[in-house]
């Protein structure tokens, strides 16, 4: 009986959804005729090999997007007031996973001359990408709403979103072991639910073109209060960026984290310098240092909201790690970009990371180094080819944390994209 009831309810839901869709199209057609619309399809294919006996892994994606805009006032190229709707879906195919995902469904608006000032109000609602100032805490699509109010010398923004309507297969909002276990559960269609909010105050170019940001990020786990492995966290970020001298820039971002059930604070910090060659010499040289706290006497492990990894082969979580990187990017021709970087990894506390081949008695904190080279060729607007080669050199014996005999790893990836 229960099955029949559910089936009937689903039937009604489908009828109502179909009628709503048809009504929207009928009512929307005259409006669509009056708005600017743009659409496209992108076909992406990739193959990655570990340069060992294992065969290469291949995958692909078809991404479709649609953008519509109503200009309320101003130049059509750079309107002062407008509304736009963006829709983007992707079908991803790999050997063990196929899914169709709605990546963006966003209604955005912009209104200038707020209250007779030079202020600009921007709003957005729907599903859109949310990135915190450090991009180490959160970089993920969410379902929510955001508002941004900016003047020449002050910018205030706030965004709130929910992660529980994202597909379980694609969500990277994984903070706890339970979240990671849920990702393997094929019966779960939706990702773990969390309410996430970000509020930021910026002073753009307040002094000698320096920009200051103060940001507060918080997330609340919506599992039952009694559930084990719940985690509620808050993050306070301070950042300063700007030019040192012409063509030399810096960016310093420090984030302090507090968890509801943890008295010890955690932290993440990153500092980077980069030099650009300008239009005459299209190149960029950069150096950066980053640190994410681990468990120690004075720090707790840093737990970002989005589970991303450091390194392209090592794939360590952003926790208990120090990394230093030198990078060079050159554009010798308009269709070609070549870049390379060298990164050294160390543990961020006295605790060793959970990696295969680690020597439990290791006295050194050096994890190893990675060398990466990339080449991107874009001969025309619709065709792109990218090749990435990476190699990881583990620090072994008395040098590092790995046992003798742990060998180097290499990886080669090729990507091809065609825009329709």
């Amino acid at each position, binding site marked *: 009986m229960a099955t029949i009831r559910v089936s009937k309810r689903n039937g009604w839901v489908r009828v109502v959804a179909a009628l709503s869709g048809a009504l929207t199209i009928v009512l929307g057609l005259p409006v669509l005729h009056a708005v*600017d*619309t*743009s659409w496209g399809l992108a076909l992406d294919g990739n193959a990655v090999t570990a340069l060992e006996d294992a065969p290469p892994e291949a995958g692909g994606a078809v991404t479709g997007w649609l953008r519509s*805009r109503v200009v309320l006032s101003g*130049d*059509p*190229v750079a309107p002062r007031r407008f509304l736009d709707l963006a829709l983007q879906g992707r079908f991803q195919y790999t050997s063990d996973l196929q899914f169709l995902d709605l990546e963006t469904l966003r209604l955005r608006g912009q209104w200038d001359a707020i209250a007779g000032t030079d202020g600009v109000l921007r709003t957005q609602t729907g599903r859109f990408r949310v990135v915190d100032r450090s991009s180490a805490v959160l970089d993920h699509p969410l379902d929510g709403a955001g508002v941004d109010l900016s003047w020449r010398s002050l910018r205030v923004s706030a965004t709130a979103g929910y992660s529980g309507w994202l597909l379980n297969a694609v969500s990277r909002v994984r903070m706890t072991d339970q979240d990671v276990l849920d990702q393997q559960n094929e019966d779960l269609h939706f990702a773990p639910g969390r309410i996430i909010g970000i509020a930021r105050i910026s002073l753009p170019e307040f002094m000698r073109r320096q920009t200051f940001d103060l940001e507060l990020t918080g997330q609340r786990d919506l599992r039952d209060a009694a559930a084990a492995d719940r985690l509620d966290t808050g993050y306070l970020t301070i950042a300063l960026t700007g030019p040192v001298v012409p063509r030399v820039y810096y960016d310093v971002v420090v984030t302090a984290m507090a968890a509801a059930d943890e008295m010890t604070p955690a932290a993440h910090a990153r500092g980077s310098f980069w030099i650009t060659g300008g239009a005459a010499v299209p190149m960029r040289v950069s150096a950066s240092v980053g640190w994410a706290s681990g468990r120690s006497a004075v720090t707790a492990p840093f737990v970002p909201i989005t589970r991303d990894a450091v390194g392209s082969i090592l794939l360590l979580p952003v926790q208990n790690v120090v990394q230093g990187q030198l990078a060079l990017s050159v554009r010798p021709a308009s269709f070609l970009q070549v870049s390379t970087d060298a990164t050294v990894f160390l543990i961020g506390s006295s605790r060793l990371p959970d990696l295969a081949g680690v020597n439990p008695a290791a006295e050194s904190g050096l994890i190893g180094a990675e060398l990466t080279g990339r080449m991107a060729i874009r001969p*025309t*607007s619709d*065709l792109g080819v990218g090749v990435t080669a990476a190699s990881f050199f583990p620090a072994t014996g008395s040098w590092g944390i790995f046992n003798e005999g742990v060998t180097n790893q290499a990886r080669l990836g090729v990507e091809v994209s065609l825009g329709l």
Partner: protein
Amino acid sequence: MIGFAILAASTKLTRRYLAVVLCALLSVMVAVEAHGQSPELIDALLETDYMTHRDAAALIAVVSAVPARPSSRIRDDAADQPITVGQYSRLLMRTFNIPGGVLFRLTGLPRYAARDLAFRGIIQGDLYPGASVSGQHALRILGRVLELRERGAL
């Protein structure tokens, strides 16, 4: 030189840049007059919200002294219809022999012409190939084409 002048002339007429824009506009007029062509056309087009196919072809011919090469897909009775960003892009690509991407070569569709010009930085901002083209917008795009041609980048 004309490309730079048009670029300057077609930017927004804010109070701050009014003097600069007026000087640039004057230099456009002088340059056009020197070629024995009509400054009135430029003047009128700067005020136009919707360029027609005929306006676009005349603009290109007057400013660049290169006869425009409209697509054979445009019917004669459409000459006074508003031209879209995509159609204007295709007109520019045909007139100045700008190499297109794979899909433009295969289909010749305006949307791919617009995308190719955006890829080369000639069209800037959000791209809507079906949107109409204002006079200022058309002058700005044409200015960038001429600037890149002068630099030998096209």
